[in-house]
């Protein structure tokens, strides 16, 4: 059972200062238990001696300096991963939000990852066919490339992202072509749309 601290000293915006902590590591994941039993996640942003500066992943509303408790979990923010994750919808913390069952992890991976060795890279030169002529013909996508799509208000970003994901295929590459979509600060309607559209599209 991890130690519980009731020594929250300050809360300011998404930051919180916890005092007299021992054996807490940098970047460690923590939980805050509110007086009403609600549990919120947080992460250690800086440690200075016995003071830990903590970043809240959720809102600070309702946190009470004297009644809230903080636990540190002894691990970093990890994501349980499994091939069953295909076709599911998750929130920003990796919890399923599609009413489906919990994921049984095959592995737990640190979400920060480790940098790739530049000597181990291959130069991206395999073409990804999206079926969108403006992309394939003029601004070709290449496997292993990072590609942001910039868009303005009211432009059909959702539809264009979606058609890229659903029709992407790469010649000469055996195996599944997995799409992983992240949406920030967007209404739920967006992911419902995507989910609906992607499940209608046949994967070829």
């Amino acid at each position, binding site marked *: 059972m991890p130690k519980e601290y009731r020594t929250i000293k300050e809360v300011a915006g998404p930051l919180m200062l916890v005092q007299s902590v021992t*054996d807490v590591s940098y970047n460690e994941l923590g939980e805050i238990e509110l007086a009403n039993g609600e549990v919120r996640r947080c992460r250690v942003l800086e440690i200075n001696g016995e003071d830990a500066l903590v970043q809240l992943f959720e809102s600070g509303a309702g946190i009470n300096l004297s009644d809230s408790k903080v636990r540190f979990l002894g691990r970093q923010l990890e994501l349980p991963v499994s091939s069953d994750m295909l076709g599911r919808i998750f929130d920003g913390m990796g919890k399923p939000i599609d009413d489906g069952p919990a994921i049984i992890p095959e592995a737990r991976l640190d979400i920060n990852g*480790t940098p*790739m*060795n*530049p*000597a*181990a890279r291959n*130069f991206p030169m395999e073409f990804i066919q999206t079926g969108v002529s403006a992309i394939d013909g003029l601004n070709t996508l290449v496997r292993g490339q990072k590609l942001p799509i910039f868009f303005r208000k009211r432009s059909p970003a959702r539809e264009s992202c979606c058609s890229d994901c659903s029709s992407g295929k790469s010649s000469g590459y055996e195996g599944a072509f997995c799409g992983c979509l992240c949406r920030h600060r967007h209404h739920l309607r967006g992911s419902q749309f995507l989910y609906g559209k992607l499940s209608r599209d046949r994967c070829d």
Partner: protein
Amino acid sequence: MSNGTILKISGPLVVAQGMRDANMFDVVRVSNQRLIGEIIEIHDDRASIQVYEETSGLRPGEPVESTGVPLSVELGPGLIGGIFDGIQRPLEEIMAVSGNNLERGVEVPSLNRDRIWNFIATANAGDTVTGGDTLGYVNETNIVKHKILVPPGLSGTLVRIQDGEHKLDDVIADLEDAKGQIHSLNLYQRWPVRIGRPYKKKFAPTMPLITGQRVIDSLFPLAKGGVAAIPGPFGSGKTVTQHQLAKWAQADIIVYIGCGERGNEMTDVLNEFPELIDPNTGESLMKRTVLIANTSDMPVAAREASIYTGITIAEYFRDMGFSVALMADSTSRWAEALREMSGRLEEMPGEEGYPAYLASRLAQFYERAGRVSILGSEDREGSLSAIGAVSPPGGDISEPVSQATLRIVKVFWGLDAQLAYKRHFPAINWLTSYSLYSDSLSSWFNENVAADWNAFRARILLILQEEAELEEIVKLVGMDALSPADRLKMEVARSIREDFLHQLAFHEIDTHTSPYKQFLMMKLILLYYDKASGALEFGADIENIVNLPIREKIGRFKYVSEDLIREEADSIESELVHEIAETIEKEGF
């Protein structure tokens, strides 16, 4: 040696206590994982340490151990053709140990200890030697004769020197100094990266670093030992220009620092360089190249160190008497790393959040370039030229990193997004760029390439400037309002831009142009201008002059291979004279 414990952790910055005996800039091993770090500040017994690896999971109370030596690089055979990270860890060998990703706390020696080198001694036992003198050499690649030098600061009599096959750690010579102390010398030496390697004196730069790039060599030349900056917005071709320089610059050794840029670009270098053949030596370009990679996903603190690591390696080769060119892509990412560390240290921010010492740090880096008389008993010369890319956000060079860089460098190759958009590459803007070396280099070009070089260069620049003025008029009243002489000038300027300055990096022949061919190209264009102006005076029609068939050949001259240029230039010249004469005749004058 000093052993302390971690007190504070904030990203790549760790504060440790109990470090009273540690020295500034000592390398320390942090935590049980033995991450590499460097002391950058000491208050009382507290040392601020920048850690070169990811610090997640560290906790207060873990040990910090000082190694007692400053951040140093290993200099010896095995550097050439290697790819190292910002603190000279060999990435190829780390890949063998930890796979495709960089794990933390991996300890691999910078240079391979097991490889056997054939050391050929040139000094003899009993010789009196001083720092910088050559003990012998190792043929590291077919083109690089890696000289083994007496480390700077040592001098005395050689007691023993041993030829033959050695590993890096083997003692190859013993040196007795004036106090009678014996120093054992290995095939490699160490040098702290933040201290420039000493030299006897600096010379004025009077020789150009030929790059094979026409806009650079002809219009804005860089001197051997000079410093240049390539600022430009993204997408304007900084990296391609840097790669072109790394490929074709007439230097003996190239050090390429990929500092905070995309990993795929380093891969491009790694894939392409071994296949490219250096026109001067006929050997693969990789056989003269050292790569330092700190890509954008690698730790920030090591990015700060990477350019020092790179320039120390470059100085080491300079000390052998080589002409070395160093490319840093990009110094903006380096400055951002400096800013991040400075913020963590809670220093007072300067302009745009960069630390107040940004300009002096940049100057310290660039000032290590130069053409110098190297250490040693004989008078020998070596040069180190530095070319830094700057990526100003939004392409606006009024930001601090660009401004601080421009104060130091003497060559400015201003990349222009507009030119890049028009597909004019290299997109170096001829109106804003400058080279302060052009005067001191002019005599070299006149003596070694052709006597008319500088006259031609000046005329070309003048025509381009006049074109910019005429363009203003054309915008207002249209091309037809120009006098025939001005229309001809516009045409010639277009020819200079398209036939001469525009250079295709991916064309087999066009990618590299010798100075003499550059001269011939300038000569043909200007010859056309002179002959056509003459014809206009005789009353020839401007349309006919502009549409002469020979102009096509002048335009295609850049694709003529180097061994045919003289004949081709002669034939174009005589055809040109002939066609102009014909035009004048046809018009009946």
